[in-house]
């Protein structure tokens, strides 16, 4: 059994644009917000939040560039 076989995960994956990176970002979203809420503002939490946003923007750009090739 893989992570993708879990009911919630598979339902989320089915609803999205069929992309594992976006699925992972969606699933990681609550954890990142919870981390920020519990740990407060620090260099580490700001970096985690920054990486989350960069991953989303970067992946959209990557898909766009790949589609132009």
């Amino acid at each position, binding site marked *: 059994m893989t992570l993708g076989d879990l009911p919630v995960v598979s339902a989320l994956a089915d609803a*999205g644009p069929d992309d594992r990176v*976006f699925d992972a970002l969606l699933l990681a*979203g609550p954890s*990142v*917000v919870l981390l*920020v809420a519990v740990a407060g503002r620090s260099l580490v939490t700001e970096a985690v939040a920054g990486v989350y946003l960069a991953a989303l923007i970067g992946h959209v750009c990557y898909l766009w560039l790949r589609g132009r090739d």
Partner: protein
Amino acid sequence: MNGSVATVGRDVGRILQALGGLVVVTLLVALVWGEFWAAPALVVSAAVPLVLGRLLWTRYREAEDPGMLHGMMVAALGWFAVGVFGALPFLLLAWTVRIDPAVLAAPDGTATLSAFTNPLNAVFESMSGFTGTGLTMTDDEEVLPRTLQWWRTFSEWVGGVGVIVLTTAILSRPGSGSLTLYESEARSEKIHPSVVSTVRTIWWIFVLFTFVSILTLWLAGMPIWEAINHAMTGLATGGFSVTDNSIATYDSATIDFALLPVMLLGSIAFPVHYLMLRGDLRNLYADLQTRWVFLYMGGGSALLVAFLHATGPYDTVFGAIRFGLFQFVSAATCTGFQTASPPATISLGDWPAQAQLTVTFAMVVGGAAGSTAGGIKLIRGLTLAKGIRYRIAEVFYPDSAVRRLHIDGRILDEEAASREFMEAAIITLLWVAFLVVGVFTLLLTLPAGEFTLENVLFEIASAQGNVGLSTGITGPESLPTPSKVTFLFHMWIGRLEIVPVLVTLRAVFKRGGMYE
């Protein structure tokens, strides 16, 4: 008639069940924040729509699938029911604090919370939340219990996408007329052939963008609880705030500019988001509505900035750009966040008349169809403009000429062009007619001489466009009861684009024997 009651009753019952589920989620928030005194009120607030919804569902479960008339009635009555039953948390929490049962150890009351002991104020807040309007009966949102802060936010977040979209996503039955209901909630766009798959994808995108918005606002300097609430209401283009002076509380240019992309995301249609998440960024300029979202926001903001700078409220160009850009985008996306308010700067109500009317125009037009934004919608404005040009140009062609109207990549023949033009014209005419009726009603019911005509026009356009910007007219004390009822009606018809409400009222009056 009985068939209609059964079909409408069954589907409104489903919507009430979904509403009860939302209150159950809010119960968890109350427990997390340690507001245990709020739990009994929330349990009752959840139980009433759940039980009533279950009864309706059980009684009429074998009813026929909805046709177009049923779909419109379900949308109109469902949204009305959500507005009424969604008021229960406000009403019951306020009365819990007022009665103060010793066993619950409720906190001390505040004037803000006390306003919700009036059922009309509670319904106003609920309707404003679910329709994504953002006009409020609170004086100071900061002193509200966290539970109610969340309920206001949550109602806007769900209402932004739509209560029928929510109900379809979680309670849908295959082949049960979901498409009819979906279309009756002012939506027509589809991402997948199946409506159920479409609404699930809409929620997928919406949830992902919510996390992105929360982290963006937090990185811009907002505390996390406020970032969560403002991200949810900003993305839903609702505009409720958990601070006393909306976004003006922060007086931070960084936060102002961080909110711009959040509001813009909310005003772009979900199918375009879906394509962009698949790497098709061409739609930012290739899709007619999305292109015009940027052109219209850019042009309107530039005009507003010019008015503000030329007429003097702001001494610096940066000040005029900061407040003009934010307020135009906030109005045109129908969000209603306010930065033009003390302590950051002078109030919107004190802006020069031409600046207020520019913002009013932005609220009337609104964002893209298929997004969370309200107003007449850009596509209708564009259809009207193209249709008018088409009709005028007709004079210059011979009678035998075969002409086509091009809208958003579609080529329409004479009949289809007439149909689309008429639909856009009807909605626009109704929109303006109700706007005028609302202005007259407000002028008759407000204290004479207290507010200017542009203030009144602004406030009604804000309610009907589901925007929420205020010149100071709306408030628990400042707004007389008939005006509150007027605003409730305008928020309701604005969210459903008027026609479903008129159809429902006609059906109710006709079948009820009021006229034949």
